[in-house]
């Protein structure tokens, strides 16, 4: 209470008001210039759409394109805390940076490849559990039964909680003496676990937290997919005497692929990029619990090696890009194929009705 004074509120509102005015003026000037140039001078037929998208495009250029270009530039530099104002840029340095990503520890002890393998393991574990258990729960929930609405509501609680709150709460619960996992283990007559100082158990702890956090999203998305499937496929398979496993594999999975595939792609990208959970659970800054993105953050902001980190970031980005393209090739996923499949589905449903 004491710190939220009217002066503080006035200062923050004043600053925000100022920047809002700047944005508004900038948009008006931009639109006016575009109007003069495209409409009046060139009589361009797409003048209106370009005027419509211009503010968004410029915003994204400022926030994404320019910083990435800047980052590429940084990768040519030896900028760190000492050389923050006057870094040197050269081709030799870009080569040094690239070499030190792979041939020297990215933090104090850990090299690039162990961190990379850990990230792959983390992503693999997470996406398998999310999809596997999410599909399992979705299938259980996809039937008329009592209390279904209640189950659904309770099961999405981890998704509804703010991620920062959930990760910090779990971090507290992994306390050796007072956290509930250890209290339960000791009551069961087992040994309490060093969740925070033992590298292996810390990795387990971050996996437990994120599995708990991520299942509801998959379950809800897949339940939506299951509910859109027509019962007639299953009835027909019944008549042919297909077993349950066969049906799951050859009817359910192929039919929900249009929902499953983008959800898995998103899941891989989100998990690979998940910062909050590994960063918060790793309270003792164990390098053995760092995945690529948290290692990147520490290299940049704990060790202040900006030039090196820029190169490290570019390497991570290329890996992510490669994985995504490869995955999309493998499952032959493309937005347009998806849309036409969806259109066909809607058509057949429409015909029946």
């Amino acid at each position, binding site marked *: 209470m004491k*710190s939220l004074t009217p002066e503080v509120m006035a200062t923050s509102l004043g600053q925000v008001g100022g920047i809002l005015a700047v944005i508004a003026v900038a948009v008006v000037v931009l639109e006016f210039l575009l109007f003069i140039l495209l409409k009046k001078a060139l009589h361009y037929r797409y003048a*209106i759409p370009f005027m419509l998208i211009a503010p968004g495009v410029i915003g994204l250029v*400022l926030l994404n394109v320019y910083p990435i270009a800047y*980052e590429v530039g940084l990768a040519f530099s030896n900028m760190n805390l000492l050389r923050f104002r006057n870094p040197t840029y050269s081709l030799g340095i870009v080569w040094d940076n690239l070499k030190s990503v792979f041939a020297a520890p990215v933090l104090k002890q850990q090299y690039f490849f162990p961190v990379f393998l850990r990230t792959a393991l983390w992503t693999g574990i997470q996406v398998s559990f999310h999809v596997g258990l999410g599909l399992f*729960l979705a299938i259980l929930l996809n039937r008329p039964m009592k209390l279904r609405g209640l189950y659904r509501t309770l099961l999405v609680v981890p998704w*509804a909680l703010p991620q920062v*709150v959930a990760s910090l*709460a779990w971090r507290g619960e992994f306390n050796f003496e007072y956290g509930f996992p250890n209290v339960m283990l000791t009551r069961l007559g087992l040994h309490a676990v060093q969740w925070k100082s033992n590298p292996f158990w810390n990795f387990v702890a971050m996996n437990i937290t994120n599995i708990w956090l991520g299942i509801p999203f998959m379950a809800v998305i897949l339940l939506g997919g299951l509910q859109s499937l027509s019962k007639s496929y299953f009835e027909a398979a019944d008549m042919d005497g297909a077993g349950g496993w066969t049906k799951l594999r050859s009817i359910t999975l192929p039919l929900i692929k249009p929902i499953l595939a983008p959800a898995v792609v998103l899941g891989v990208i989100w998990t690979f990029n998940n910062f909050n959970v590994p960063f918060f659970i790793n309270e003792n800054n164990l390098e053995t619990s760092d995945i690529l*993105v948290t290692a990147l953050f520490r290299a940049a902001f704990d060790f202040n090696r900006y030039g090196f980190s820029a190169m490290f970031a570019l390497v991570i980005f290329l890996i992510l890009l490669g994985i995504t393209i490869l995955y999309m090739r493998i499952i032959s996923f493309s937005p347009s194929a998806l849309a036409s499949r969806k259109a066909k589905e809607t058509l057949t449903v429409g015909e029946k009705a």
Partner: protein
Amino acid sequence: MSKKSFIYRFFHRSVGDSPAKRTVIHVVLIVACVISIYPALRVFSVSIRPGNRVLSTDLALIPRGATFEAYLTVVRDKDFLLWVWNSFFITITTSAIGVIIASTSAYGFSRWNFPGRNAGLIALLATQMIPAPMLMIPLYIIAARLGLINTWRGLVIAYSVSSIPFSIWILKGYYDTIPLELEQSAMIDGASRMGAFYRIILPLSAPSLAIAFLFNFTSAWNEFLLARIMLQKKEMLTWTLGLRQMQGQFQTQWAEFSAAAIMISIPVMALFFYSSKWLISGLTLGSVKE
């Protein structure tokens, strides 16, 4: 019946399950629900522990001598309200800017097949792949050079823009379902193109505008990384930074931390459940629609 019929019925049969099978399904779901809500209930139970028994190995959900003391302490003696205020005004402002910019851009993408349109849509998706820590390095250095560290200005611009790609996809998907004839007839009646957009399309799109606003709101409200880099002054912390700081003093402030966590979470969860129908349909809409 084959051996597989149990698995089959377990997974697919909805009517005519035997009572035993139905019991198994309910038991599995109840166990899943307990696992899902126990950690959240646990935060609540720690938050109402009395001051002298905060650190205990008690597992009871309602501790002996339960009290809301910690809530009062957090509101009165900590900077909690300041953090909430900081998060709140910046979130509202940036969500509004973000949705306004996205709503017009999405209209451009929906109604005109201008050169570069498809490339633009794919580029929007690609921005979602960029790891956030990757952007932090250049953003921090640029902000430091421009003197934007410890100001709200840099954060306002960054938060406003960061949800625009997702909002454009959601809104474009929705505009695509609105027939062109509606605008054409308005234009025959003398409305300008933008007049038709403002008077016909925008009111019709209220549900998807709400989804976009909500998405902007939650992502800015829960943001940690950029705030951590840009804001260092004590009086500028957002709730994510403040809560992190409280958790650092775990041994002494577990009950206070939990109370703050509960107070942050309840409105967010209420909003989530209130809007979950639209939110979820919006998510599938965004991912499935071309």
